[in-house]
């Protein structure tokens, strides 16, 4: 991952946000959009798409897509943390799937790096559809901190 500095004017931030997704081929292929990136964490959204469906009977998006979204969002939160990691990789990621995401709705992930040491970052993330009062999934992960 490249280093998206959270500083700078709004236009520069938007450019960095765009670049962050553009340099990750898989994030771009899935259609992710970085909505927010600051020391507080990251927010990334992913519109529903027919080819990402995991259950053809219901049209519900595959859990793997939620995993990719939460993993990317968690990595972004690590990179944006003021501790200043130059790169990061997932060590471990646990995802709880609370309910099926509503077909047709955009999924939004929020991740927050709540503790960071010299070599490890601890992150929590949530995934929501239009009904933000009932999360679709939550995740907790450990990430490397490359300096």
């Amino acid at each position, binding site marked *: 991952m490249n280093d998206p500095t959270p500083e700078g004017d709004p236009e520069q931030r938007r450019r960095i946000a765009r670049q962050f997704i553009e340099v990750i081929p898989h994030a771009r292929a899935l259609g992710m959009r970085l909505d927010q990136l600051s020391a507080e964490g990251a927010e990334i959204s992913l519109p529903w798409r027919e*080819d990402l469906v995991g259950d053809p009977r219901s049209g519900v998006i595959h859990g*793997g897509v939620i995993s990719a979204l939460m993993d990317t969002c968690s990595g972004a939160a690590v990179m944006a943390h003021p501790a200043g990691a130059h790169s990061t990789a997932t060590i471990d990621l646990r995802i709880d799937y609370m309910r099926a995401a509503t077909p047709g709705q955009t999924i939004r992930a929020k991740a927050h790096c709540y503790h960071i040491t010299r070599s490890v970052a601890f992150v929590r993330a949530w995934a929501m559809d239009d009904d933000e009062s009932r999360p679709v999934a939550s995740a907790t992960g450990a990430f490397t901190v490359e300096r």
Partner: protein
Amino acid sequence: MAPRNEPLDVIKSRRNNTLNALVSSVPYIRWLGIGFDRRGDELTAVLPFDEKLIGNPMLPAIHGGVTAAFLEVTAIVELTWTAIWQDMEQGRIAPDAAVPESLPRLPKTIDFTVDYLRSGLPRDAYARARVVRSGRRYASVHVEAWQDQRSKLFAQATGHFLMAQHG
């Protein structure tokens, strides 16, 4: 189990058709490009490398989310395959991707924990799942993924699933 003298091509086409229907009916499995090799009832998932799977273009390395998705797909297909085996062998079901009602109901993931052991190289990846415990409602599945060497896993995962309820 199939009768001893059932023609081999009948047995093979029944098993291959069922597996194909199961895999080809899921858009996301097709989008990732995952295929399944079958030896008897043993399945090996194959993820051919593709540019769009990259998460870190500097190394380059496969995206951690792709690894998680690959392992989860492998677990779900293995669990479904194991659950429908008897019905398939006895001819009670014959899933057809063109007929949605004929497809088996898929288990729902409750939780999934991925252990990233080394970075995913820009090459094909393989995975096998083992149903550790399968009850009427819940199942626990362990999955291992490797690339060049079977003994050098690049990721493993454990997941819990809610089994589809029939009737």
